[in-house]
């Protein structure tokens, strides 16, 4: 009798576990593309555009400030190619004015990630930021178009300034954004009249003429970095130089922190003198504005998005 009772209990448990298994099999699978499409606009169907969204796994992420306890932070950067051409991009991430390491999916840790994206497709990058210390982290995700594209004329050099970005603020064991700011650059010379908005790499001998292809040879390449603000509000920002998409010093500084009044422009004269290992090399400067600006679910977007300078091809 006791054996029969145990047999019935075991049978019942088996039936119940079968039911639960059936339920888990029947759990609906989420079509991620449908989720992304549901956040698109009509222009994405009719014009040659790219779209960019921040997601938390399959959910649209509305928040832009995160209080964290862990050393890592993971979110999905989803790029939509709504153009008629396949594309290629490089993802870079900056913590304030410093390029940082990150991991995409289960890949290796690196400070850049190149990927291709087919036309009419989405690319979902599960990005993990690692080794985050206590304090305020001003995180800027930046996507640069066609990293292998070398400008052959000044128009292409300007086109390669296109940049897509998302800003989030991370507060680790800290309540608010600190009031302390980095030291301001003092070497920037104010222009009499502003022409540039963002950053621009100019020939030294002809101000405002676009630098797009230079041969290094035995000499260094002199250039002028112009940076300006055409908006009606004062901005603070980091300027970061990229050599083959790796951060490189601007003069003697790892990065520059400076401010610009409305309709103001400044310039610095610099020399490019890095040793070249590759035949073709790429040089570009990024402006990352308002790094201390609070962002939130309600105010998710910066007054001015990050901007890239014209891209310069430097031949060995």
């Amino acid at each position, binding site marked *: 009798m006791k054996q029969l009772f145990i047999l019935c209990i075991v049978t019942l448990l088996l039936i119940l576990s079968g039911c639960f298994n059936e339920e888990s099999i029947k759990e609906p699978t989420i079509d991620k593309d449908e989720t992304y499409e549901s956040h*698109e*606009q009509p222009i994405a169907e009719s014009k040659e555009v790219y*779209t960019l969204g921040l997601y938390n796994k399959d959910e649209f992420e509305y928040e832009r400030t995160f209080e964290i306890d862990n050393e890592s932070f993971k979110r999905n950067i989803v790029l939509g190619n709504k153009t008629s051409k396949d594309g290629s991009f490089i993802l870079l991430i900056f913590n304030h004015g410093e390029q940082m390491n990150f991991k995409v999916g289960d890949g290796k840790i690196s400070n850049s990630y190149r990927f291709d994206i087919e036309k009419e497709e989405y690319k979902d990058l599960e990005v993990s930021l690692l080794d985050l210390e206590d304090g305020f982290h001003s995180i800027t995700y930046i996507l640069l178009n066609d990293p292998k594209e070398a400008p052959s004329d000044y128009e292409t050099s300007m086109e390669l*300034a296109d940049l897509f970005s998302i800003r989030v603020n991370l507060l680790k064991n800290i309540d608010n954004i600190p009031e302390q700011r980095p030291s301001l650059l003092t070497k920037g010379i104010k222009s009499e009249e502003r022409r540039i908005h*963002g950053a621009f790499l100019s020939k030294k001998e002809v101000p405002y003429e*676009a630098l797009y292809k230079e041969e290094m040879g035995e000499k260094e390449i002199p250039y002028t970095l112009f940076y300006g603000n055409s908006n009606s509000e004062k901005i603070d920002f980091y300027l970061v130089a990229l050599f083959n998409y790796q951060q490189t010093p601007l003069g003697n500084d790892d990065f520059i922190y400076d401010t610009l009044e409305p309709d103001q422009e400044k310039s610095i004269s610099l020399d490019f003198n890095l040793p070249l290992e590759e035949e073709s090399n790429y040089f570009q400067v990024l402006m990352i504005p308002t790094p201390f600006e609070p962002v939130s679910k309600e105010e998710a*977007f910066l007054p001015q998005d990050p901007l890239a300078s014209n891209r310069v091809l430097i031949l060995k």
Partner: protein
Amino acid sequence: MEIKKIMFSLITVSFLFTLVLVAPVGAEEEAKVFDTKIDNVSKDDYIDKEGDKVQEKVYYNSEGDIVKVSVEKGEYAEPVSTDNSIQSYGSYYAVSRSSVTARFEAWSGAPQVRVYANGFSDSYTSSSKSTKKSIDRIIVNTTLMMNASVEDQDSDSRSSSSFANASAKQQSFMIPTHSQYSRSSHTYHNSGTNSVYHSTEASRG
């Protein structure tokens, strides 16, 4: 040989004629102070070839000379809401475009041709474009390039807006040897939607 001479003469005459047309007037006339005080403004509303409403304002001085001209698109159209994310949330119909224009206007005291690069970003409730719609932020950055140089860059970044317009204008007098190139980067941000990045170009000459 005769044909070559004639061709050479024609080219020389054409070049000189071009110089006369676009060059600043002589030093004596430059010394004459151009009256930039605005005495009269005329407005012209029209639908452009893209089907968008445009308002052109021409400012005259007391002598009837044009002091400046502004072309605005969208600015006079009332947005559906200037409020926050509640009404701006969700779907919108974005329209972007670039143009290059040129006109005679007062410049260093004398009328001269000045080239403009214009970038227009607008958001509407639907493809009929009959009603504007505010979204969280619209940014347009416009660049004017002439003879391999950046003549000007302009940006317009607006929150809770249905439009952004940026016009970059020629800063230095020159005879263009290349076409004048305009490029605008348009960004549309709205709560609950993927951000949209759209580039438009235009050229003249």
